Each structure stands twice: as C-alpha cells, then as structure tokens.
C-alpha cells in the first residue's frame, strides 16, 4: 500500500494473476518431467543435466549478487571450491553420508562468506571484484599446499566413490541428479521469494541507485551482507554437487577463475537482474559448450567476446529483448501501483522494459 500526497491509498501489486497460473502450470509440468527423468535410465543426458543444474544454481546466485545487490564478484569460485572440499572433509574424514554433505557445504559457504564480506565490502565496484578474486586465490593456494587433500593434484572423494560403486551407476547418479535438481529449484525459489520480499525491494533500490536507497532508509551494508552470504551458501552447494558428480576435487579446477568466466557469460547473455535470464543463459552456455569446447582457446575467446559485446550493446541480454518484445515473465517480480479502484481486475503484467499495459 502506498499513500499519495493527497492522502489517498493505492494498492501495490507484485506480479499478476495470469502470470501466476502460467508459472504454476509450466513449472509443475517441467518439474515433473525433470523429476521422472532419471527413472528412464542414467544416460549422458542425466549427467549433462546434473552439471546444468549446478551451473544454473551458481548463476542464479551470481545474478543475485550482481543484478540486485550491485556486487560484482569475480570470486564465487571460492565458495564453489570450498563446497567441494567440505564434501571431501565430511564424507571422508567425519564419515557422514556424502549426499548429506551438501547441507554442510551450504553452512560452510555461509560461515566463510561473513568475514569475507567484511573485508571485500571495504572495496567498491571493480576493485571489489578483484578483492573477491584474491580471496578465491587464497583458498586455492591453501588447498594446493595441504598434503592431506593431495595438494595441487587433488583427491578423490573416497566415501562417495565407494557409495557410487555399491549403488551402481544408475542408483548413484540418479540420486545426485535429484539432489542437483533440488538445489537448482531451491536457489531459484530463494531468489524469487527474496526478491518479492521487503529485502528484495531494498535490493532493487540498491541496484538502481545505492546512495538514494541508503538515504531512503535501506541498510546498505546489511542487505548486501545477507545477499553475499546467501550467494556463498548457494555456490558452495553447487560446488559440493560438482564434487559428488565427479567424485574428486582438485584445487586448480575447483577454485578456477573459469567459473567466473562462465557465470559472467551465462548471466550477461541471458539477462542481468532477472531470474529467467540465467536460465536462458545456462541453456545457451551448454549448447555452446557441447559444440565448441573442443576448440579450447577459441571457445574462451568466443565466450569473452560475446559477453563483452552483449554487455556494451544489449544490456538486457536475451531475456531483456524477449521482455521488450512480449512482456512475458515467468517470475513476476516488478511491483506496480494499482491506480483506480481496487475491485478492478489487475491489468496484465507490464514489463520493466516498457510493456504495453502500463500506458494510459
């Protein structure tokens, strides 16, 4: 509810009824199909989808940081790697069921994110990005020098490998698959619910202009901190799943800056600051990876060029373009003030990019 200057109150609506039913319908069907998928046998596609879910989850988290809190992180690989090593620690040393370790990874990610935030938040903009990168480098160097985890060569996650052997390929990978699906759905749900909440409104205000957000009573530091912690936990879960999927962890790849390259590419291509964007971006990233990653360096050159070109010439990415053309939203997040009588049915969703319905 907002109050205008003359004291009249207008309802504020988040999303619209029509879009809600579309989300429910499409989402439910897609989820059921994805959920039943491994029952038809573990194939290459099951494995691809496990990775797909991990990238999607990490990209959602990165998008939450960049697209909403305005935090440009070049160091989410710190949490991806920490998640992977947390699985190793709790599965091989503490002897906990490896699948449960994903939960511990999330906790570890959140705990490490707190002091890390206190440090890097002293920097701003691009320097913050390099600051997060330094933190990831520190973890990479530490884990490269620990002999218990095999140093730079890495280690296999023994308990998980054993479990994979006893359960067989079908049993193990379908369980990892369901876990990955759950984590991907969880990250999307967290982003969606967070952005529709009061904190979400604060985040959008920060994204648009952090100084005016602060002067309107948004606690900048705390809101950014919460986001950074959530993103740390989410990326750690993605890293834990990658470790369970590959049954090994190596500091060079777990803490690799390539993660940031992938996350930047996915989010920028798909559309920064939307939940749908990273989804589209991950699909494109996958299509590109499956077809061109065998060309090695050329693949990275294309990724870098595309990200730079899209960032300069089409800030909204592919989803921004779709939104402009059709006004279609899967996850309605924008708030609209309902001018006129409240009994009136809500107008069809108007896009932030300037859809048709908002014009009077």
């Amino acid at each position, binding site marked *: 509810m907002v109050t205008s200057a003359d004291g009249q109150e207008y309802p504020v609506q988040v999303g619209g009824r029509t879009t809600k039913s579309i989300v429910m319908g499409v989402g439910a069907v897609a989820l059921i199909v994805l959920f039943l998928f491994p029952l038809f046998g573990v194939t290459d596609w099951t494995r691809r989808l496990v990775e797909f879910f991990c990238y999607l989850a990490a990209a959602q988290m990165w998008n939450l940081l*960049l697209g909403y809190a*305005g935090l*440009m992180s*070049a160091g989410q690989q710190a949490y991806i790697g920490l998640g992977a090593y947390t699985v190793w620690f709790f599965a091989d040393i503490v002897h906990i069921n490896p699948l449960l370790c994903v939960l511990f990874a999330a906790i570890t990610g959140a705990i490490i994110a707190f002091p890390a935030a*206190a*440090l890097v938040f*002293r*920097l*701003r*903009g*691009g*320097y913050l*990005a*390099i*600051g997060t*990168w*330094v*933190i990831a*480098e*520190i973890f990479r*160097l*530490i884990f*490269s*020098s620990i002999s218990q985890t095999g140093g730079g060569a890495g280690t296999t996650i023994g308990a998980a490998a054993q479990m994979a052997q006893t359960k067989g390929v079908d049993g193990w990978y379908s369980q990892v698959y369901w876990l990955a699906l759950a984590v991907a759905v969880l990250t999307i749900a967290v982003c969606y619910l967070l952005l529709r909440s009061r904190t979400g409104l604060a985040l959008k205000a920060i994204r648009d202009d952090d100084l005016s957000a602060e002067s309107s009573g948004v606690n900048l530091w705390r809101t950014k901190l919460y986001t950074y912690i959530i993103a740390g936990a989410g990326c750690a879960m993605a890293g834990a799943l990658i470790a369970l999927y590959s049954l090994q962890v190596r500091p060079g790849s777990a803490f690799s*800056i390539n993660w*940031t*390259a992938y996350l*930047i590419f996915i989010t*920028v291509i798909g559309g*920064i600051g939307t939940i749908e964007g990273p989804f589209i971006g991950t699909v494109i990233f996958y299509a590109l990876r499956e077809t061109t990653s065998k060309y090695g*360096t*050329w693949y*990275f*050159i294309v*990724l*870098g*060029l*595309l*990200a*730079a070109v899209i*960032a*300069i010439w089409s*800030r909204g990415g592919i989803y921004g373009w779709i939104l402009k053309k059709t006004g279609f939203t899967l996850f309605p997040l924008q708030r609209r003030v309902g001018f006129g009588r409240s009994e009136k049915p809500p107008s069809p969703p108007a896009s932030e990019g300037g859809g048709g319905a908002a014009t009077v």
Partner: protein
Amino acid sequence: MDWVNTIVSGILLGGLYSLFAVGLSLVFGTMRLVNLAHGDLTVLPAYVALLMVGSAGRFNPLYAIPLTMVVMFGFGYLLQRGLLNRVVLKGDIIGVIVTFGLSMVIMNALQQGFTANSQGLDAGKIENLSITVTDQFAIGWLPLLIFLLAIVVITALQLYMGHTKMGRAFRAVSDDTDAARLMGINTKHVWAVAMAVALLVVSIGGVIMGIRTTFSPLLGTDRLIFAFEAVIIGGMGSLWGTFVGGIVLGVAQLIGAKVFGSPFQHLVGHLVFIAILAFRPQGFLAKTVTK
C-alpha cells in the same frame, strides 16, 4: 646477510609490481575504470617484443623495449577509442564485464598464437650480470634496472600530471567529466591517451621481465592481482603510494617464501594484503577519499 638479501630482492621485486600497478592506477584515476585485462596487457608487450626480435633476425631484445613501448602506446590508444570509451561512465559493472571478457580474449588469443608454454627473450650476458656487494650478497643488474626505471617512470608521470596540458586534462576529466567537456576538453581523446600512457608504462616492466625470466599467457591473472594489491596497500590516488605498496607486497612475498618455502610466496603476499585491507583499508598514502 641472508635476510638483507631477501629484503633487498623484495624491494627490487616491489619496483616491478609498482611499475605494473601505476598503469592500473592511472586508468582508474582518469576514467574510474577497473581494467581486469590489465594483467594480460602487461604480458602482451613481451610477446610483441618476441615477434620483433624473431622477425628482425636476432637483435638484442633490450633494443625492442622502446619499440614495444611505441607499439603498446598505439595499441592502448586504439583499444580505448575503439572499445573501452563505450564503457566509461556507464557504471562499474559494464566496465568489469567488458574488461574481463577482453582479458579472456587476450589470454586465449596469446595461447592460440604462441601456445601456453613458457617463452623467453634472450638478451645475452646482462641477464646474469650482478653487482657483488659481499660473497653472499649480490644485486642483479636487471632487477635493479627495473627498480630504477620504476622510480624514473613515477617521477616522470608525476611531472607529466602536474606540469603539462595533457596532465592537467587527466586531472580535470577525473574530477568532473562534464565540466571538463564544457571547458573544451575532448574526453574521449584524453581517456585514450591515459590508456596509451598506462600501456606504455607497463610494457617497460613487461619486456624486461620477459628478458629476466620466462613468460607465458597465463601470467596475467597474478600480475593483475599483484598490481591491484599494490594500489590498495599504497592507497588509491597516490603514485608514490602505489610505489610503496608494490615494495610492501614484494618484501612480504619474498619473506613468505624464505620463511615457509617458495610455494607460499604468493599466499603470504595475499595475506599481508588482506591484513592491510582489514586494519588500514585506506592504504598507506591515500590521497583520494572513496566512499
């Protein structure tokens, strides 16, 4: 004597870091752009020199330094006018994404063209010449040359910024772009010159390091991070601060390597940086206040 050796080597190494860092600092100072491709742009001149030495038939790479500086100056100008001017003033995020993309392109293009293997520039005897102070303590000529050049470059930049028309334009554009534009300054040209000067400066260190040790396209990451750490440790906006920051980092790294072994060189450097970020976030000689 061992310790003196370590500390002197650290100071000399710091000179190299500060040479890389002033380029990063200059670009950030004039256009508020954090150039994530900076590290790769310090590696690039070594390959430019390699091409020159290779194509002109075995001449000493030391002569390639001024030529490389000219090439990198031109490259920087064109890079800024052709691409990066489009991201200046569009906010931090676009700048970081575009320069990160550029970094990927440069690094992988170098790998494509020259493989990921280490290469070297052979300058003959000077590589191993050193001034022997005592039996256990000697200072290499090349590290000393880099260090002295760092001092010369920073002094020259300081004079350039303070006493020339273009230097004044740098500062004016940095303080208030719109006002500078109203006064008739061609901001696009000024930014391009700033990038060109930054790349000219880093190519000195880039080529000499190529002579002193080997280089590979993968070095860019570390160089970007070390340059950044030197800038933050020294305090943003101060060239001599960056010099001090580089020295602190260089000494910290070599002490770390001496105490814990060489795998810990970079880790100790990062940790000292983190400690300074925690306890003195404005750096040692900060001039600008950033909120």
